[in-house]
């Protein structure tokens, strides 16, 4: 039993994440989609930016009112000042400088530094909240499909109830009741965002449950726990990877939207919070609202591109 022999086709039954041949195959299919590759590259860049960026940029909390509303490099802004000694009101044109390549906000904080630290917030929220939602969704979905009967009935009715809540309105209510701390926002998104995963995983697991390898495992005396964790869950992994990539943008946007309406964590400089401040100074400093929005937009776009590419790559019917 310990001797491993290569049987043709045997590794196909291995789950994706330890099967290098399949991983290579899927990577080839995905990489043929140029937009998906762009998405992946941008996401890797963002992760790098969030991890090592802060050690190269200035302190994002550094306030300097002498340098407030500085435009990005290549742009100019009108700065008006009142001189108390001469009782004069002067306006001068200021140019963006290399010290603040993306400009500064209304308190003179460096936009680049704030955007870099905001990247960390968005990634953390996106990955952790999606992780929580996926774990809950996968366990409930597999359990529901495997157990069937009244367990399935109760779990699916509960899923229906949670699905009826408009996602954002429920989030607003929860964060309003429990207070806006980042950890809690992440938890709230994770605890409410699992319903789609549960449904998809359940339908996938329902079809897997009747396959021969599950019957074979049961015939060999595998326990329910073993069948669920060693046979069903590994086989829905490719589905889960796709769901994860596709749900991260929604999660990042949910946090940004909460921050935008003032339900964000005021101690954390997320993109949504910068954007919220920026929308009130559109006529004096447009870049404060534009820049974090572009970051949000590109991040969401990148995940959507990658998710779409992965979905096509994992779908045997599609001809990538």
């Amino acid at each position, binding site marked *: 039993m310990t001797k491993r022999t290569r049987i043709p086709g045997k590794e196909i039954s291995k789950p994706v994440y330890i099967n290098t041949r399949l991983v290579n195959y899927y990577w080839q299919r995905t990489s043929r989609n140029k937009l998906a590759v762009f998405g992946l590259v941008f996401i890797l860049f963002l992760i790098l930016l969030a991890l090592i960026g802060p050690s190269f940029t200035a302190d994002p909390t550094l306030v300097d009112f002498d340098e407030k509303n500085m435009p990005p490099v290549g742009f100019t802004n009108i700065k008006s000042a009142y001189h108390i000694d001469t009782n004069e009101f002067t306006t001068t044109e200021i140019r963006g400088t290399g010290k603040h390549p993306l400009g500064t906000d209304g308190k003179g904080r460096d936009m680049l530094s704030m955007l870099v630290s905001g990247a960390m917030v968005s990634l953390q929220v996106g990955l952790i909240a999606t992780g929580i939602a996926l774990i809950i969704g996968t366990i409930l979905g597999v359990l529901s499909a495997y157990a069937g009967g009244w367990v399935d009935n109760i779990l699916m009715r509960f899923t229906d109830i949670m699905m009826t809540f408009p996602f954002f*309105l429920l989030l607003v209510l929860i964060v309003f009741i429990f*207070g806006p701390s980042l950890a809690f926002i992440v938890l709230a998104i994770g605890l409410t965002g699992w319903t789609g995963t549960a449904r998809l995983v359940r339908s996938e697991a329902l079809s897997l449950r009747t396959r021969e390898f599950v019957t074979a495992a049961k015939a060999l005396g595998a326990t329910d726990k073993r069948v669920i964790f060693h046979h069903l869950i590994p086989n829905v992994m490719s589905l889960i990877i796709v769901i994860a990539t596709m749900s991260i943008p929604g999660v990042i946007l949910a946090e940004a*939207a909460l921050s935008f309406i003032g339900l964000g964590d005021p101690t954390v400089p997320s993109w949504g919070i910068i954007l919220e401040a920026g929308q009130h100074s*559109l006529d004096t400093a447009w870049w404060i609202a534009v820049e974090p929005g572009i970051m949000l937009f590109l991040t969401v776009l990148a995940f959507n591109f990658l998710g779409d590419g992965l979905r096509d790559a994992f779908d045997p019917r599609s001809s990538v």
Partner: protein
Amino acid sequence: MGKSWLRVYIIKRLIYAVIIALGILTITFVLVRVGPSSPADKYLANLAAKGQDIAQVTAAIEARYGLDKPIWQQYIDYIGNLLRGNLGWSFSTSMPVIDLIKTHWIYSFQLILLSSIFAAVLGILIGIYSAVKQYTKTDYVFTFLSFIGVSIPSFWLGVMLILVFSVKLGIFKSYYDTALPLFSLENLKALVLPVMTLGTGMLAGYVRYTRSSMLDNLRKGFITTARAKGLPERTVIGKHAFRNALLPLVTIIMFDLGSIVFGGAYLTEIVFGIPGLGQVSFNAIFAHDYPVVMSITLIGTFMVLFINMATDIAYTYLDPRIRYD
């Protein structure tokens, strides 16, 4: 054909809706009860600042909310009140929540209705065109644009539209004018930017759904048959392919309404200062006016419940293949 199974199905569907409704109420009730502070706490600071006796105020508020009663009694009262249409009292505006909602719902409704029409008509047309011209340059352009449309954060798009069309070009006002009569051209003009803000994401989504749903159908045998018997292409696309693509499309449009559109409308109203329910809830958050925030989430949720039920029942009439017996 006997339709008695249909009546049985509708009754079953209604019972199911009641179960879901009870679940929704239970979850919201539990949320408020396990929340870190009682509804009373939020007002205490204000009242104490005015020099009133805290203990007395607490007791008064708790009696008003029924917090001095046993928990099961509170639960029954909560559901009973909602059934009677009593959504509570709004502290910040000093009126019953139901009256507040009656004066403001129309603003949300007009925004959502106009955006839906805009997005559905344009989205379906572009989607059909894209599917018929699959793998042409126009198809690629539309597909790429629809990716951008679904990825652009609606509230940011709203701020950008204000920046370009109000601040820089001065074509539209950046703030919704509440003095305008509802059915007027000026009101329609004031809604152009908000409808674009809310509608763009929906539009892009509908383009993608229509395209893939049409492509599924165009591959099928009955399309080849229709073409083979010499039907004009317009009839093949319009009557044969699109009719069949429409049903899954309507399902998705209805589902989106709850999961995406209500949240999008909430944000759009805040960006443009439209005094709809989203704006009311937003103001209530800062006033710690908890019955208002709660009621508006509940109204959104029950709208979804109703829409889902209506869609399901409508299908049994629209699609002869669906039978539940």
